[in-house]
């Protein structure tokens, strides 16, 4: 079976404060005269290398793993999953 790279991005839901993103925006980016930037959200990326039959099935598999093992906390975080062939 082929190998895929599956990327899971975990970030806080809208409305949940993100002090790291706010600090990067206010104390780094805006202080460097980049006034066109309006918002920065920080997050975490996990990249899974996984074997499977196709992109959809490996995305589903990683989604299931992330749900079952609480890789992200659903109260405050959301996850975005996307796969491509290695």
């Amino acid at each position, binding site marked *: 079976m082929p190998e895929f790279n599956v990327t899971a991005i975990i970030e806080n839901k809208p409305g*949940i404060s993100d*002090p*790291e993103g706010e600090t990067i925006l206010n104390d780094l980016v805006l202080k460097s005269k980049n006034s066109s930037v309006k918002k920065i959200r920080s997050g975490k990326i996990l990249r899974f290398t996984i074997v499977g039959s196709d992109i959809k099935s490996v995305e589903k598999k990683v989604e299931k793993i992330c749900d079952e*093992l*609480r890789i992200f*906390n659903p*109260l*405050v975080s959301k996850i975005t999953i996307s796969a491509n062939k290695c």
Partner: protein
Amino acid sequence: MKVAVVVFPGSNCDRDMFHVLTDVFNFETQYFWHQDKLPNNIDAVILPGGFSYGDRLRAGVIAANSPIISSVKKLANSGTPILGVCNGFQILVESELLPGVLLKNTSLNFMCEWTNLIVNNNNTPFTNKLKVGQKIPIPIANGEGRYFADKKLLSELKNNNQIVFSYQNRVNGSTEQIAGICNKDGNVVGMMPHPERAAEAIINPVDYKPSSLIFESLLKTLGVKN
């Protein structure tokens, strides 16, 4: 009367907790490694503070998948008193024995300082010798201690009297300054501050008595005369 102190890879307050339980309050105490099972004759379980698995992924989440947690859940469901302190609280939340989540402090700093707690609920196995409104001078030591509850959860916590402790002042951005909560039945309690670092006069520069009442409450719960 046997109290279990659970040790995870990265726990670092287990010995302080063991010392206070045995040397100060005369509990019969035993360490249990996270890969063990807890026997049925355990009367109370303490999950101590520390940095299980180096806080990787998110504080407490990897330890929450340890084999011992299924024993802890079994005892919790049968009404056994369970206390999680600091990382222990994070593990209780991540194992869904307690609701909500502990996020990075608003300052993003590791905070190590003395705070004042206010008792909100004295109807738990760990607070029954305290008074509602009583002040507890006690230290915190955490990086991910900002308790968060959304509107729905917050109203549930209030309706069920699940907010056990709150900070007297704004400390780390916690929702409504929450420092400790319990489950609906009241037997599972989690708190970010460290009572084991405050329950003896020699290490508490303010007043050790209120913190010692947390352990005396457990003695009372277990029917031990003190």
